[in-house]
């Protein structure tokens, strides 16, 4: 793993990465099957799907059935990956993933695309702020949110062979480039992207880029902020959370999700039991989504580098 962040965006769109990585996984492992709910076009798998109908199965707009079919395929000896937009991949088939999948010990990899404000122009009906909370409470689940395209590729390849329910909330658009091509990001780890001594920012997904920008700005003001990439939301990297919280004595959590039940909750659970230090969140407050550009929505819901900076300063004061 090599960090190459310089503030620039990766040249690859995440949907292009998905469109290449899913077929690559299918070609390298004949036990993997991929199911979609009429959204292959949205993640670049339609062409492959049309040519490989037994391996890339379009289930139509029926997410509950798709999750159940995936469970059946798992029983028959397959390793299913299912995809829909994050709202449908969580709320619309939650009971099926929970029972037919998790409870029945049928392992399924679930891809939920367009997390949080990245749903942008599809608006409030399509904007999952709660998917992380839902997937965190499935016993034995793994919840992942890649911070860049390289991270996405690495996590998806690992997730397929991992037991239980694996949920990846993945963007389809461009993201900042954090890691060098080919980097391996082990599930369960939270890499320290930038060290610091005054405050630590635990961030996931698009908020990692915001956190790194905030840290650079804070440095100019004489504040040393560490940034940790929490691409593994569950199981959270307890060791890194505790080490960095003890080292800095102040915590900010930045997530593109509702403040209840997501990464903020996961970090607070670790802190409360091990090293209670002042903490603050940069999350969506208890609100539903709405339509708009991603940049507008990041402002609207308080998910920018500036918001992180402000919270970092306020939490340091509380030490």
């Amino acid at each position, binding site marked *: 793993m090599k960090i190459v962040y310089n503030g620039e965006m990766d040249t690859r769109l995440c949907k292009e990465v998905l469109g290449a990585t899913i077929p690559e996984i299918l070609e390298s492992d004949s036990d993997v099957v991929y199911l979609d709910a009429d959204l292959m076009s949205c993640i670049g798998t339609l062409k492959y799907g049309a040519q490989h109908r037994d391996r890339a199965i379009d289930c139509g707009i029926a997410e509950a*059935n798709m999750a159940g*079919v995936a*469970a*059946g*395929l798992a029983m028959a000896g397959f390793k299913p990956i299912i995809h829909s937009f994050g709202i449908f991949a969580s709320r619309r088939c939650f009971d099926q993933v929970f*029972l*037919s999948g998790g409870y029945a010990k049928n392992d399924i990899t679930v891809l939920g695309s367009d997390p949080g404000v990245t749903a942008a122009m599809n608006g409030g009906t399509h904007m999952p702020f709660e998917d992380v909370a839902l997937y965190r409470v499935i016993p034995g689940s793994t919840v992942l949110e890649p911070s860049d395209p390289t991270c996405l590729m690495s996590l998806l390849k690992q997730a397929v062979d991992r037991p239980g329910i694996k949920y990846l909330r993945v963007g389809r658009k461009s993201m900042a480039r954090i890691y060098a091509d080919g980097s391996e990001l082990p599930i369960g780890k939270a890499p320290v992207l930038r060290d610091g001594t005054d405050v630590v920012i635990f961030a996931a997904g698009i908020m990692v880029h915001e956190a790194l920008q905030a840290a650079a700005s804070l440095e100019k003001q004489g504040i040393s902020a560490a940034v940790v990439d929490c691409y593994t939301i569950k199981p959270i990297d307890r060791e890194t959370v505790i080490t960095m919280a003890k080292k800095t004595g102040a915590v900010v959590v930045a997530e593109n999700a509702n403040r209840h039940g997501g990464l903020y909750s996961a970090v607070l659970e670790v802190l409360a039991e091990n090293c209670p230090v002042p903490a603050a969140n940069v999350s969506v407050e208890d609100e539903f989504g709405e339509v708009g550009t991603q940049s507008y929505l990041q402002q609207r819901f308080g998910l920018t580098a500036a918001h992180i900076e402000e919270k970092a300063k306020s939490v340091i004061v509380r030490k």
Partner: protein
Amino acid sequence: MENEETNMDQTEVKALKAFAIRIRLATLDAIHSIGSGHLGGALSIADVMAVLYGREMNIRVEDPAWPDRDKLVCSKGHAGPGVYGTLAVKGYFPYEELKTLNKNGTRLPSHCDRNKTPGIDVTTGSLGQGTSQACGLALGDRLKGRKNRVFLIVGDGEMDEGQCWEAFAFAAAHKLSNLVVLIDWNKKQLDGLCNDILPMGDFVKKMEAFGFDAVQVKGDDVEAIAVALERTRQGGDKPYAIVLDTVKGAGVEEVANTLMNHSMPVNDEKYEKWTTELKAELAALEG
């Protein structure tokens, strides 16, 4: 001696009828041990279970995980005691274990659990979910090149769940002719009569409209069930549906005559009465 219309050996028919009675006795043994349970819907599937496990299914009792076996998905998972009764009579686990139904730490929970009970193929309980799992199993087994079939038992009340219809559309789209859907049309659901709550119309027509090869048979006629199941061996490009015209609580008159019989108490007195009736029936059948 054979029935001229069906070519079925009447000795076998008698054996299937006896198996169905033994399943009902076993179901009562299980539910009586805990005092009450989902009696009505467990009894209504006893006849089809007898034909499946006594004749139609290709299974190995000594190897419940044999990958090429035929599989049963009892999507109306609350009929667990009826399925356990069948499995116990077949010898998947000791008969006496039926008395652990729902007891703390049991391998026989109220609803079917594939990770707990030898012989249970699929975990069910949240209605509708077995239908999609059955489709996935049938598709997966076919993709793996297996020649087995998947038998899916669905309740008529369960058909209220939209997931069933998503699954049936999927089954037809993928030409899952290795899938046989058995609809337990017992006319009742938990709160009363299906027709008073959410009438579903003609299941044969509905299943045909969804792309199935569908027939209806008398659900307590093991011979008719056997013939209908035999027909589903021919493959083709459609999934199969058999609508079983059943009575909720079938085989135990007092239960069948009780309107609200989804879940019922089975006290010592009722247990004695009902099992005595069934044993007499069995004795008469077997001479």
